[in-house]
């Protein structure tokens, strides 16, 4: 059973005359569109905007931390900077990053549907996102928020006079945007699959997004009500989280992390979705252990709801319940390991090529493994006591979020760029930027593990001089990292005009989305396809030139 795929040469490919990009013109046709592909592009543009802001704030953080005293900005300003950095990066960038752009674009294509189940709700969710984003942006411009992204009570409710309520409203709206995205995905996956597309023929991308959506719809509302209560506490002075009234600030932690822990899986599962596709495509092999990978996604989503208290181990929760949650956290780490090993084994006896997405995917595997295993450090009760609230955590979550998800996001953007735009990105420079990103990343965040074990607390504007050397490394790395991210922002737009024409299936991939023209038509499929083979069936693809199954000419 070996596969050589020889599709017709893509070099002669030409841009299709009609596609979703030129179906209609004018700003209105974009702002009122129901087309999931256009909404994906809207998201792409807007999250990039917020990423640049968040990144610039990260730059400020690193600049301040270059020297021990808080000399670049006042401590107050610094607090606002990292709070806004966290809030923007998490709620406005990472949570919607892959699902709302790549997922939005691809899920209907992958399941063989004309659109998501509720196009208007999809558009509404973008508007909610923008409203939320602009409100948060306004909160930042009007003076900032200094609660950290975790809004710890009673600090956020009674001791800050910054725009906490405004930011909470913004997050509330952005949260509903993500609820609606999740809702749309679930209904689409359940109800809109094309004939022959059984659950176990779905690409793993869809499985992962399905799992993500479960978390989005079940977790996000708890965050919403928690923020409402915080806002009510600030405005109307109710006392649910206020210890001086008999309320319990720990209850806030419970409710907040009930969302925010599962949310970290909202932030990684879509990344894993991308990696499954990329690794399979560039090793021309079916993903090793398809069912195991599919179920591990769902397992992560379900177990993800059982472990939130590991963020509160030293906050005065009962020691027995800490035991329970530490144990459950160990369990949730296992499905991630399953995935990593399955991807590794997918390479075995494949026929591997090293295009940019694949490089990012390798980066993901390495960095996520480090990030994930350091998560296990934190899940280990006695270790967490020393490591919590230090830079070790900062390093942990940047490894999983930036090294994991952001790498995966970039892998995905590069991988599907030809599909989205019909043009190739420039290969050489993008490889350089992938490598620069990787190096920059390691230099930035690896020293933070050491800093964390040394005991440097997070959210510190000034720190003892003993910690400076490692911080200098970190700042230097962040500069490299910034360049690594800046490059795609330059060459991707460039490729819109000058990039080579991609053709329908430049990667010789098997997904339904690759069997139609790039960029696709607004209706996606002229005729609803009939799925008659497994996902990642490279045999089928190899024979495809014989039996032409293309739905769009």
């Amino acid at each position, binding site marked *: 059973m070996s596969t050589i795929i020889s599709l017709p040469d893509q070099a002669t490919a030409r841009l299709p005359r009609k596609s979703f990009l030129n179906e209609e013109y004018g700003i209105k046709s974009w702002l009122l569109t129901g087309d999931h592909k256009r909404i994906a592009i809207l998201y792409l543009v807007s999250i990039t905007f917020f990423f640049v802001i968040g990144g610039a704030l990260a730059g400020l953080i690193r600049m301040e931390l270059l020297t021990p005293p808080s000399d670049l900005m006042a401590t107050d300003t610094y607090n606002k900077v990292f709070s806004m950095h966290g809030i923007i990066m998490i709620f406005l960038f990472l949570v919607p990053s892959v699902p709302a752009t790549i997922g939005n674009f691809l899920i209907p294509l992958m399941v063989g549907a004309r659109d998501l189940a509720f196009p208007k709700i999809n558009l509404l969710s973008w508007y909610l996102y923008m409203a939320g984003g602009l409100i948060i942006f306004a909160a930042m411009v009007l003076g900032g928020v200094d609660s950290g992204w975790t809004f710890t009570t009673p600090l956020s409710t009674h001791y800050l006079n910054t725009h906490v309520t405004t930011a909470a409203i913004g997050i509330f709206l952005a949260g509903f945007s993500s609820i609606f995205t999740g809702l749309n995905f679930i209904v689409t996956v359940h109800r809109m*699959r094309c004939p022959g597309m059984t659950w176990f023929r779905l690409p793993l991308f869809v499985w992962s997004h399905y799992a993500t959506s479960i978390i989005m719809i079940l977790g996000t509302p708890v965050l919403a009500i928690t923020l409402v209560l915080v806002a009510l506490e600030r405005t109307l002075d*109710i006392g*649910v989280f206020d210890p001086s009234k008999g309320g319990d600030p720990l209850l806030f932690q419970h409710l907040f992390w009930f969302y925010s822990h599962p949310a970290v899986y909202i932030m990684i599962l879509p990344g894993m979705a991308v990696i499954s596709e990329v690794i399979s495509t560039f090793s021309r092999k079916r993903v090793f252990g398809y069912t195991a990978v599919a179920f591990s996604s769902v397992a992560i989503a379900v177990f993800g709801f059982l472990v939130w208290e590991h963020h509160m181990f030293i906050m005065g929760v009962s020691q027995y319940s800490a035991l329970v949650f530490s144990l459950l956290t160990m369990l949730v780490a296992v499905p991630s390991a399953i995935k990593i090993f399955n991807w590794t084994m997918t390479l075995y006896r494949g026929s591997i090529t090293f295009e940019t997405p694949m490089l990012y995917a390798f980066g993901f595997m390495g960095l996520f493994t480090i990030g994930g295993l350091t998560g296990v450090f934190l899940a280990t009760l006695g270790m967490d006591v020393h490591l919590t609230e230090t830079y070790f955590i900062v390093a942990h979550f940047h490894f999983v979020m930036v090294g994991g998800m952001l790498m995966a996001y970039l892998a995905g953007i590069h991988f599907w760029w030809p599909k989205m735009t019909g043009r190739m990105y420039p290969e050489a420079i993008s490889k350089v930027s992938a490598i620069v990103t990787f190096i920059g990343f390691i230099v930035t965040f690896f020293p933070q593990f050491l800093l964390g074990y040394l005991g440097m607390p997070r959210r510190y504007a000034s720190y003892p001089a003993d910690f400076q050397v490692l911080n200098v490394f970190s700042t230097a790395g962040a500069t490299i990292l910034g360049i690594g991210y800046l490059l795609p922002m330059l060459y991707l737009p460039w490729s819109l005009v000058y990039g080579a024409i991609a053709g329908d299936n430049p990667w010789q991939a098997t997904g339904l989305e690759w069997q139609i023209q790039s960029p696709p038509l607004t209706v996606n499929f002229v005729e609803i396809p009939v799925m008659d083979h497994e996902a990642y069936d490279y045999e089928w693809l190899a024979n495809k030139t014989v039996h032409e199954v293309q739905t769009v000419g």
Partner: protein
Amino acid sequence: MDSHSVATAPGELVGGVDPHSHPSFLRHHFESVGQQREAASFGMWIFLLTEVMFFGGMFCAYLIFRNWYHPAFVAGSNTLDITLGTTNTAVLIGSSFTMAMAVYSAEMRRRSQLILFLTLTIVLGFAFLGIKAVEYHQKFVDHHIPGPNFSIQEFVHPSNPHAIPLSPDMAQKTQIYFSLYFAMTGMHALHMIIGISLLFFMVWRASQNAYTEGHIMPVENFGLYWHFVDIVWIFLFPLLYLISRYR
């Protein structure tokens, strides 16, 4: 064996509507009316799940504080007007009934009956909000609204006929009870207000014959929403009004 393949097979009657007749309300990306309706009601249920979790956060808070500060919750609960509360429960259940009947009328394609039941639902909804407003006003008069003006007078003096007076520290905790009371009933009332606004819209659409030509999905989905709001109240009522009434 995939079901969607069946949906595209010709000559099948889906949901009573011929899939190939393509009624005007069938949106382009759906294959059939049946698929569209299934999707819509599934979507609505998913949305209701998020609502369950939304209220769930407050129920969780309620559970904890009720057990910590039980005497305060008893005292707070006993200040609520049980007649108004029970009436309101009945009113809301009635409105759920009229809503169910509205859905039925839409299914039966009876326009005037549909409008009638929708209007009745509006009336009952307003009745509920009206009674709620009276209760809120009462709380306002009694200084039982959490915040700087909150007063524990009633709970420390034996002037309160219902409850044994609490010690001052426990009486303070009634503020937690009222915080939860206002947060929960307030969120519930907010849902009612949204619901009533949608009802007005639906009466208008119904009068244009929008729901009585086979396209009953909006009415049905709105019905689900309305019943959900009713269910929330079904739990709020015993939890907030009926704590140790026998005192």
